[in-house]
Every structure is written in structure tokens, then in C-alpha cells.
């Protein structure tokens, strides 16, 4: 337990982890949808900070821009456009909720147990290749991962077209 | 070979022909509503008649050309169909292969004979002739091909084809559709074929050497003679056979199907279709798994005896002819099963005789009673009585069928029953004694039914005015009776052929 705080890195990690888990607890605790969304935004920002801490600068920035920025904003729009006063029901210990809780809890137990039981070979000395790496990531994207890159662009196109078609109002609906 | 191919392929071709020919529109018939004998679809039944006559003639040639005491499959021919790959350079080649030996020739001939008779003796209602003829020819082809098959896959496919054709035959008769009976038929026999297919695949797997799965009977029995097969394979086969043969307690589909069936379908069901199971048991169970058959002989014998007795009692308490015929058929099959369990050549011979004669007797019963049914529209004993005065010919045939059924000497059933019981006394005397009692029961219920129908008091005057069977109706009955007698008086040629098959079932005792 001593090595916990032996380095600034791990101290920072545990603080971040605490923040993230706290936000997650709040997410589970809140009743109002809008608060839940805010808690989720906090988790995303925490994750981005974690990526930066781990030295994955590009991923961290992407996380901030896409999750914490775009998706959270999109989420706010969606909540405002729909029923923004919505709340989760307080009592509901329905079967679905119970099963979901049980399943998630079991999965968590199994996961944590397995992670703990496994001996992880951790390389303490990090190859500098993996840090400050935007240009290398770019090279990889266009060499080894060309095909998925192209496919992802198709995916974004499809999602764009589909989302626009599904969400747009038709003339009859506007008249209502 | 050519004659076997011809005998097999004619019904198939004829069936295709029936399906391909256009259905004549019923509008021709609007004028002549009351024309039971001249239907607009008459030519279809003639296709069936011609086709089955060709097969019938070929059958005689086959009997003449059959070499006695030869234990190879004769008239054999085959062609390759396709291969299932089992891995690198490992294949299961599936062939369509046909051939006959002493075991299959008699049953094959039974199918041909009854099929031929069906087309001459039975005429379904006018608007259904096309459908009926098409399915019936297909069913006959399927059942003939399952007897003549000498390759596992050919057998399996023919069995499945029988299922299909039988289902539609039971379904499409009379004014309304018989969904319950047809579905029951499909479920029970479908389950039966599941078990049999599993058993046969298990057999092939057990006989596999170096990744090659044998599928031809000859190779299988040669390989398996020296190797044991897991017991579960035999048990699967046995359960399949019990379902297929409608043995108690899995029998309920059979009387139900018989109850609603038209005469032609009933003859097919009772005369031929319920004989395939025992054939499979002798062919695969005794022929290829002699060790297991020996281990389970007590079980087989017990099931056989139970069937013999139970079905006899059920037949005794039957309220109408159809039910009586179905249960008497089950009862005979019980005796045949017992005869198989003796695992001796005489017993096998007895079983084979029983199979054939039970087919003949059931057909004779069914066709004769159909003649009565046409006039009375009922076959319940409570509505019959004293028919010997108004319908002497019909009563005569009925009496003859009953005598055949109870095993009167000079009929083929006698030969079968005698040999079965005789063989039984040598191996399982206690069981044989019970079987003898069961035969007494069969005498009781047949004669009881005859007494109620033909003799006894005349219930009402309409019964007195019934016309007797015409020549067209009675000659098929005469042919059946002739064969029944022929096999009883001169069993030897038949037995010689059959024995040639049992010689190479080397596991059998004397």
C-alpha cells in the first residue's frame, strides 16, 4: 500500500479515479434526467483527464472534443427537445431493474476478481514511441489501419444520412 | 437389374406424370352430377393402374430370376449422388443403391401386390382422384424403394418420402381435411424416423475406419460383424421401430389414422407402411448388431408378447371393423416381434411369413368391409347383422379373412404362426406359451366379429335389400385370397428365397 502515493502519477490517478467514481455514484443516485446527464458529462471529462495522465494525448483530446463536447451537448439538446422535466421513478424495484442490477453486479464481481487474480506483466519503462505521438498515430491510421479508417468514414456517412432522415419533421407533423 | 429398376421407377414416373398433367376443370361435370363411375379425372386412375401393373409383372420376373441360396444382393445397381466431406480427404459418399435379397424381395412384392390391388379395388371420390393418385403412387414408390434399398441414405430418404406422402394422403381425403390424424401420423412417424436415422448414422459412425463411413448394407454388415456397436444405437433403433410399427404404448396414431382413412389409404397403412419398422429391425438390428439383439432379446420378446395380448384385447372390445382390423394388425406384428426375438432362422422365417400374411389379411379385411361400407355407410357392429343372407360373397371373403387372421392351416398365417411359436418354444418356452394363449384370443375376436356381422339377427329390413359385391369389386379380393392360400399350401419356394437371406445372418441359431 505504500507505493500508492510514492509517485505523483499514481496519486493523480487515484484522485481522478475518485472523481470519476463519485460522478458515477451521483449518476446512479440522481432522479432528474438532466442531472444524470451532467454527471455523465463529468465522467467523460474525468476519462479524458485519465487519458492525458496516461500519456495518450491525442486520444485524450479526442475524448474531450467528442464525448465531453459533442456528445454531452447533443445529449442536452435531446433532453431539452424532449421532455426535459422527466425523472426516473423513485420506487421502481421492478423485475427489469432487479435483473439488471444483479447481472451488472455479478459481472463486476467476476471482472474484479479475475483482474485481481491475474498476474499482469506491466512494463514500467514506457517506450517513448507511445507518447507525444500524434504523427505516429496518423501514420498508423493511413498504413496499417487504412481499411477500418475508410469503413469508419462510410459509417459516419450512413449515420449522418440516417439520423437526418429519421429525426426530421415531415410536413404533416409541422402542421400539428 | 433392368426389371428391378423398371418396377421401381414406373410408379415414380407415373406420379410425376399425374402432377404434370393439367387438372381438368370440374365444370365439365355440372350436367351429370349423379355419375359416380364416370368422373372427369378418370384417366388419372388409369395411369396408376397401368403403372402398378407394369411393376406387378416385373415382380414376377424378379421371382423367377431370383437365385436361391445366394446371400448377395441381386439385381443390384447404384449411382453416386453426392459426398459429405468429413475432413481432409475423408468423405461419406452417398449413393442411390438398390438390390434385393431373400428378406426384402417378399416385402417388396407385398408392396407391389397391394399397390396394384389398391388401384383396381378402390376409387376415391371423383374430385380427388388426381391428388390421391399422385400421392399414392409416390407413397408406393417410397415404400418399395425403402424395401429395395441397399444403402443407408437411400433407405433414410425413402422413409422420409413415405412420411411426406402418407401425411398428404391422410390429410386430403373425403370432404373435410383430417388434420389431427395427419398431424399425429407425421409426429409419430417423424419421431420414429428421427430415432431410426440417428441409429443408422450411429451405425455408420461405429463402422467407420480411417475416416470413411460405410453406407452400403453389405459393407456395414461385414464390418460390424466383428465389432460391437454402442448399446444406445440399438436402443434408438428399437424405439424408432416401436413408433414406426405403432406398438403399444406408442400406437395411438395408427387406429386414429385408420379410422378416418379411405380404403386405399387404409390398405397402404395397415398392409405396407406398418411393415417397414420390423423390416428395419431385422435388417439393421439383427443383421448388423447381432450382439445387441442378443443382449436385448428378452426386452424385445416382452414387448412383442405385450403387444400380442394388449392389441388382441383391444380388438376384442372394438366397436367397428376398422378399429378391429388395426388392432389385429398390431397384434400380429407383436407375434412377429416375438418371433424376431428368438433369433433363430425358423423364427425369422415365421416373422417374415407373418409380415406378408398380415399385410394380405388386413387388405382383404379392409377391402371387403369397404364393399359393405359403400352400401351401409357404417361399419359399426351394432348396425350390422345377418349379412350372409343378402351379401353371401362379401360374407364369404370376410370369413376367409377371419380364418386367415386366426391362422387356419392352409393359409399363410398358419405357416407364420406355427414357425414363430415353434421357434419360441425352443428358446423362450414360457413366452411361447403365453403367445399361444394370445392366438386363442385372436380366434375369439375374429370369429366374434364375423358372427355379429354375417350371421346373427338381421337388425332391420334395409340390410336385407343390400346388393352383393359385383364382379369388379370381388376379383381383387379373390386375388388376395389366392395369394393367401398359395403361400399357405406351397410355402416352400417362398421359404427357400427367404432362407437365403437368413443364412448370412450368421448370428442366428438353427
Amino acid at each position, binding site marked *: 500500500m505504500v507505493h500508492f502515493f510514492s*509517485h505523483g*502519477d*499514481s496519486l493523480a*490517478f*487515484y484522485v481522478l479515479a475518485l472523481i*470519476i467514481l463519485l460522478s*458515477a455514484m451521483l449518476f*446512479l443516485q440522481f432522479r432528474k*434526467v438532466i442531472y444524470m*446527464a451532467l454527471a*455523465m458529462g463529468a*465522467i*467523460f471529462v474525468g*476519462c479524458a483527464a*485519465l487519458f492525458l*495522465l*496516461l*500519456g*495518450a494525448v491525442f*486520444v485524450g483530446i*479526442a*475524448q474531450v472534443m467528442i464525448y465531453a463536447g459533442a*456528445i454531452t451537448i*447533443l*445529449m442536452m439538446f*435531446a433532453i431539452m*427537445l*424532449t*421532455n426535459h422535466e*422527466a425523472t*426516473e421513478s423513485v420506487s*421502481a424495484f421492478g423485475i427489469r*431493474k432487479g435483473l439488471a*442490477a444483479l*447481472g*451488472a*453486479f455479478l*459481472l*463486476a464481481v467476476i471482472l*474484479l476478481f479475475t*483482474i*485481481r487474480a491475474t498476474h*499482469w*506483466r*506491466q*512494463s*514500467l519503462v*514506457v*517506450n517513448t514511441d*507511445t*507518447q507525444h505521438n500524434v504523427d505516429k498515430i496518423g501514420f*498508423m491510421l493511413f498504413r496499417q*489501419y487504412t481499411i477500418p479508417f475508410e469503413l*469508419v468514414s462510410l*459509417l*459516419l456517412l450512413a449515420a449522418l444520412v440516417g439520423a*437526418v432522415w*429519421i*429525426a426530421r*419533421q415531415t410536413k404533416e407533423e409541422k402542421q400539428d | 437389374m433392368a426389371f428391378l429398376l423398371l418396377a421401381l421407377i414406373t410408379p415414380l414416373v407415373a406420379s410425376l406424370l399425374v402432377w404434370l398433367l393439367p387438372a381438368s376443370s370440374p365444370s365439365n361435370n355440372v350436367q351429370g352430377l349423379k355419375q359416380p363411375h364416370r368422373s372427369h379425372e378418370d384417366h388419372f386412375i388409369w395411369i396408376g393402374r397401368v403403372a402398378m401393373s407394369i411393376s406387378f409383372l416385373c415382380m414376377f420376373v424378379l421371382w423367377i430370376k431370383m437365385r436361391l441360396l445366394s446371400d448377395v444382393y441381386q439385381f443390384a445397381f447404384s449411382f453416386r449422388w453426392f459426398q459429405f466431406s468429413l475432413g481432409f480427404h475423408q468423405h461419406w459418399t452417398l449413393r442411390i443403391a438398390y438390390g434385393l435379397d431373400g428378406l426384402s424381395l417378399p416385402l417388396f412384392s407385398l408392396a407391389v401386390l397391394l399397390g396394384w390391388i389398391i388401384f383396381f379395388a378402390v376409387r376415391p371420390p371423383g374430385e380427388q382422384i388426381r391428388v390421391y393418385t399422385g400421392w399414392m403412387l409416390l407413397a408406393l414408390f417410397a415404400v418399395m424403394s425403402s424395401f429395395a434399398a441397399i444403402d443407408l441414405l437411400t433407405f433414410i430418404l425413402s422413409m422420409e418420402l413415405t412420411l411426406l406422402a402418407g401425411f398428404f394422403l391422410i390429410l386430403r381425403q373425403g370432404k373435410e381435411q383430417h388434420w389431427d390424424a395427419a398431424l399425429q401420423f407425421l409426429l409419430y412417424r417423424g419421431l420414429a424416423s428421427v430415432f431410426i436415422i440417428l441409429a443408422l448414422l450411429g451405425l455408420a459412425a461405429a463402422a467407420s475406419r480411417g475416416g470413411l463411413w460405410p453406407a452400403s448394407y453389405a459393407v456395414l454388415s461385414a464390418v460390424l460383424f466383428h465389432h460391437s456397436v454402442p448399446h444406445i444405437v440399438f436402443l434408438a433403433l428399437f424405439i424408432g421401430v416401436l413408433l414406426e410399427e405403432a406398438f403399444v404404448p406408442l400406437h395411438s396414431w395408427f387406429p386414429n389414422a385408420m379410422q378416418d382413412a379411405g380404403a386405399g389409404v387404409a390398405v397402404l397403412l395397415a398392409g405396407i407402411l406398418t411393415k417397414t419398422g420390423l423390416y428395419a429391425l431385422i435388417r439393421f438390428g439383427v443383421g448388423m448388431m447381432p450382439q445387441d439383439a442378443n443382449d436385448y432379446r428378452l426386452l424385445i420378446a416382452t414387448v412383442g408378447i405385450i403387444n400380442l395380448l394388449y392389441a388382441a384385447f383391444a380388438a376384442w372390445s372394438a366397436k367397428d371393423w376398422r378399429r378391429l382390423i388395426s388392432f389385429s394388425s398390431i397384434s400380429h406384428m407383436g407375434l412377429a416381434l416375438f418371433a424376431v426375438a428368438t433369433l433363430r432362422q425358423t423364427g425369422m422365417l415365421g416373422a417374415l411369413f407373418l409380415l406378408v400374411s398380415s399385410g394380405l389379411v388386413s387388405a382383404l379385411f379392409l377391402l371387403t368391409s369397404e364393399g359393405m361400407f359403400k352400401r351401409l355407410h357404417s361399419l359399426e357392429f351394432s348396425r350390422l347383422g345377418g349379412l350372409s343372407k343378402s351379401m353371401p360373397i362379401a360374407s364369404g371373403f370376410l370369413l376367409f379373412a377371419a380364418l386367415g387372421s386366426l391362422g387356419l392351416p392352409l393359409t399363410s398365417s398358419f405357416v407364420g404362426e406355427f414357425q414363430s411359436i415353434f421357434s419360441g418354444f425352443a428358446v423362450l418356452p414360457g413366452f411361447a406359451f403365453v403367445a399361444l394363449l394370445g392366438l386363442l384370443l385372436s380366434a375369439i375376436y375374429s370369429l366374434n366379429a364375423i358372427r355379429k356381422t354375417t350371421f346373427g339377427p338381421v337388425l332391420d329390413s334395409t340390410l336385407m335389400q343390400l346388393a352383393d359385391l359385383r364382379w369388379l369389386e370381388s376379383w381383387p379380393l379373390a386375388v388376395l385370397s389366392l395369394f393367401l392360400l398359395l403361400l399357405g399350401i406351397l410355402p416352400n419356394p417362398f421359404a427357400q428365397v427367404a432362407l437365403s437371406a437368413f443364412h448370412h445372418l450368421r448370428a442366428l441359431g438353427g
Partner: protein
Amino acid sequence: MTTVHIPLPSVLALAAILFCIGLYGALSKRSLIIVLVSLELMLSSVNINLVAFSQLGAFPNLRGQVFSLFTITVAAAEIAVGFAIVLAFFRFRKSADADDANSQKR
């Protein structure tokens, strides 16, 4: 900064807990928007895993980070479609509840 002194199992455990919270949210929450965001949480925790492995794993290399970039992109596309369906659905029911999206009672 050439070394990172963060214990790998702790990062994995954090990811595991977040994943399970996301799973619970996705399966149990009534608000469809929250359900969708919970999906994102699951994917995000996968990203933590990937980035952690790419820096602290037995074979550190950039593939994990590239993988996580793909994940982020795909997640964005998925949630866009999800929100579109929620909006369209809201026009029918004036509600964005999962229970209302369940007209088939099994």
C-alpha cells in the same frame, strides 16, 4: 516524462466498475437518453482499458490508442442515430421513456 507509475490492475478495475455501471444503466434506466448515454459509458470504459494496455501493458504500442479512436468515432455515430430515433419517437408519444417504447407486452 518517460515512465508512468500507475498500477495497471487499478486502471483495469476502474474500467470494469465503469463498464458495469454503464451496463446497469443501459438495461435498467427508463429515460431513453440516459440509456444511450450509458452505452457510451460502456464504450468509454473500454477505451480506458485500451489506452491503459497501450501504455502499461506487457507489449506497449500505439495500436490500442488507434483502436480507441475508432471506438470513439463509432460511438459518436451510434449515439447520433440513437438520439434521432428518440426524437422521432417523442413525436409519437410526447415521452422518451423506455417503458412507453414497449407496446408489445410479452
